[in-house]
């Protein structure tokens, strides 16, 4: 009897959802960018999501068809199944080539229809009527219909991990109701004026129902996605290269414009130095990276075009507020005070990017100038720790939380990573005056597992950056705390929940700004996060690459060039 002969569909899906990037999955699942609503609700003012790239061909150059684009990604994916795979930035980049989202973001930060034709809210924003485009066909010939969308929704909702982002926001039955083959109604549990932003990423990438059915029988097909996108799957060698070729039957060719590239090859190259070497040796045409050490190299190279954006997610220390000793706010505050944030920035960001006080950069209208992240105050930390330890605190099991007047804690991170170890050593140097720090280096999967289950004290994390802050609610609400908790710090505050609800359904756009700024203050006061830096993404391409910022929506809106490191290639072309 074979051990692993039978592929059990449910086990596969469990396995499918485990890995890294779950956080990004859900982050993007609940929308990505700057506030917005639909084409029928008033548009928000919002900052663009990425710098205008210092790029590209002047308008006179005419695009030529042909060529294979070689893309360097920071990681590989285990599968490209929007209903179950953990898609991080790399996965979302690949997914964007073979799938189309129902909605997408334009350069002003509005969610505009893409695969969907239109959407209409009810007066109270509790019912959203979505109309699909007619005549759209998946790569395998199956037509795009309401049934496909509903099927995908229900499968996603049932997934034990990806579904966690969906289940709390919809009723058990009647979440999506079919009106006809191209029309459906969404019935979320709460009113949200910005509902369509949730359909701009993983949740909105519609896959072929035929393929989803086939997956149930043979999960290996997860690596051969079937969508509606401008490119379709050609071949894949795990950890080596994934190849997509142009879809000549793409629905958007007539409505939006032609797709120029013959094919795209995605190369996962985990080492940032190697990625840089490869693009300089003409082994790659375009890449993305968050390794700030590379940025100067890119800038110094005249043959490369670089665009850097730090308006996405933030890097911070995340604290588990449900477990002693950090269930006490004084200890959390002490940790923040003990951290040398400036030193971290000097050593590890090497001058690139910006330090973060909160989840918005000063470029954002939601930035709350009164909220500053504390740090660099070891005496303050010592005072708080002295007060806490003076009470001889013990946890539920009676274990003392202080030894020799210092708080016992564990810091964990995902490895193996020389850089992460250096960072850990640096933090230890900061904290050792007031804390007894134990190190715990884990594999990436283990690290996320323990975060999800709440078995950690302090961990370095990346999150937020949905500039429609409403979509970051899944990391913040009480309802997202459970056995597995997407509210990773497990911090429950009814006032915060009430704020979040209002933010989704504000009386006016101006009021919303104020509400979001209040949320920022609330996050600060919880001391569940020690904000460190805004993550900087660099998109680097050779001078043969053009047009990646020329995407348009079916209605003619200019679309964003990149979101948080995610790249799009529908309008890209190569010169020789």
């Amino acid at each position: 009897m074979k051990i692993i002969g039978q592929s059990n569909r449910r086990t596969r899906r469990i396995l499918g959802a485990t890995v890294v990037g779950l956080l990004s999955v859900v982050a993007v699942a609940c929308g990505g960018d700057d506030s917005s609503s639909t084409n029928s609700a008033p548009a928000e003012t919002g900052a663009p999501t990425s710098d205008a790239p210092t790029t590209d061909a002047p308008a006179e150059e005419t695009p030529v068809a042909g060529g294979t684009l070689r893309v360097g990604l920071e990681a590989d994916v285990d599968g490209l199944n929007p209903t179950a795979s953990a898609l991080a930035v790399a996965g979302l980049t690949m997914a964007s080539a073979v799938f189309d989202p129902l909605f997408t973001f334009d350069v002003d930060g509005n969610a505009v229809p893409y695969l969907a034709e239109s959407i209409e809210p009810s007066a109270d924003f509790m019912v959203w009527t979505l109309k699909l485009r007619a005549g759209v066909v998946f790569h395998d010939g199956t037509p795009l219909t309401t049934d496909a969308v509903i099927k995908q929704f229900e499968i996603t909702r049932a997934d034990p991990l990806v579904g966690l982002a969906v289940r709390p926001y919809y009723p058990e039955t009647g979440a999506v109701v079919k009106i006809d083959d191209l029309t459906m109604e969404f019935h979320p549990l709460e009113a949200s004026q910005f509902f369509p932003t949730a359909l701009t990423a993983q949740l909105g990438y519609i896959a072929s129902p035929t393929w989803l059915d086939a997956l149930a029988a043979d999960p290996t097909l997860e690596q051969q996605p079937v969508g509606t996108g401008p490119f379709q799957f050609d071949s894949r060698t795990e950890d080596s290269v994934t190849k997509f070729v142009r879809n000549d039957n793409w629905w958007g060719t007539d409505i939006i414009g032609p797709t120029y590239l013959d094919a795209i090859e995605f190369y996962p190259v985990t080492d940032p130095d190697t990625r840089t070497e490869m693009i300089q040796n003409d082994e790659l045409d375009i890449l993305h990276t968050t390794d700030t050490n590379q940025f100067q190299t890119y800038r110094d190279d005249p043959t490369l075009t670089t665009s850097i954006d730090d308006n996405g997610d933030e890097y911070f220390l995340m604290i588990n507020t449900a477990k002693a000793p950090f269930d006490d706010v004084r200890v959390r505050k002490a940790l923040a005070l003990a951290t040398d944030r400036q030193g971290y920035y000097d050593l590890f960001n090497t001058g690139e990017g910006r330090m973060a006080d909160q989840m918005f950069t000063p470029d954002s209208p939601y930035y709350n100038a009164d909220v500053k992240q504390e740090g660099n105050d070891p005496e303050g930390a010592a005072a708080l720790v002295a007060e806490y330890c003076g009470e001889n605190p013990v946890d539920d099991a009676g274990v003392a939380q202080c030894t020799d007047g210092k708080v016992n804690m564990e810091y964990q991170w995902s490895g193996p990573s020389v850089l992460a170890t250096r960072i850990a050593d640096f933090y230890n140097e900061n904290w050792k005056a007031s804390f007894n720090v134990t190190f715990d280096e884990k594999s990436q999967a283990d690290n996320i597992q323990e975060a999800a289950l709440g078995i950690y004290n302090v961990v370095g994390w990346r999150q937020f950056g949905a500039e429609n802050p409403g979509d970051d609610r899944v990391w913040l609400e009480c309802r997202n705390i459970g056995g597995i908790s997407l509210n990773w710090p497990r911090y429950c505050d009814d006032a915060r929940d009430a704020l979040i609800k209002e933010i989704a359904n504000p009386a006016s756009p101006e009021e919303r700004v104020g509400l979001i700024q209040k949320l920022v203050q609330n996050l600060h006061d919880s001391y569940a996060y020690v904000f460190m830096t805004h993550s900087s993404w660099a998109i680097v391409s050779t001078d043969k690459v053009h047009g990646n910022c020329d995407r348009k929506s079916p209605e003619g809106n200019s679309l964003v060039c990149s979101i948080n490191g995610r790249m799009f290639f529908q309008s890209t072309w190569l010169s020789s």
Partner: protein
Amino acid sequence: MRYYVQRVALAILLLLAVSMLTFGALNILGDPLFNILGPVAGDVNNPDSIKMIALAKKEFNLDRSLPVRYFIWLSDFVRGDFGVTFSSTGQPPVSGVISERLPRTISLVFLAQMFAILVSIPWAIIAAARAGKISDRISTINAFFLVAMPNFAIAVILKFVFSLKLGWTPITYMADDPLRSRLFQLLLPALTIGLPVAAVYQRLLRTDLITTLQQDFILLARTKGLSKTRILFVHALRPSLFSFITVVGLNTGALIGGSIVAETVFRIPGIGSTLVESIFRNDFPVVLAIVMIVASAFVVINLLVDFAYTLIDPRVRR
């Protein structure tokens, strides 16, 4: 005949022991359920998760006792079914991972061994020919130094000098490159592993040669008027090669161990670096498979060396 059968039986027993110990260690000291299921494995309050845990236990036989699980694994393994990786999709199958990466390691180890042999033989001959003189003492000291330098240190130094400063060899290994470039990319890693081993071979062979050269039949050859070179290569080398071959075979283990380091430093996706990665990720099926392959290679090579030895020198057969 009986000798051969005994040795083969011993080898098989050995491999079984290795597999039992590794399997036991992984399953007792590790936590397979956690590695397969992820967060769900610990989410024991949720009825859905409980169902998934039960399903996974059934599929991976985790509800059965350790010896039973071992036998299931063993019966699959000997039939070539290495199982699937503990990855999120169970893809690719372990045999896929191995078949893709093993050839690279084999080429690397082979190159290293070739280098070590080709370098050590002339080096030893020259040293033996000039035994006691300055050049011999210098080469002894060199050999000593090489043995004292750990292989990861050699790797770093070689990388620094030849790849970074001189730029003679490429820094990265590209799996898609043509064979010639790939072999060139394996040059430094092969040197890393091969150099210390060459030093070991050289010292041994030199000692052996010197001893052989003192034997009577050499004196006889000299009086007959045969040239030094002829004596060296034809008469002295052959008997000394016996222990040389033994050592070459026995050192395969060291070479394989060295490949782990070399593959890590030079970023070659072979089974050495895969082993390190999968140990870190607690990917037990891959770890088990690689350990068994390496141990088997080791045992089989030793067996072959033993057999070759008995063929050359029948006195040894007892």
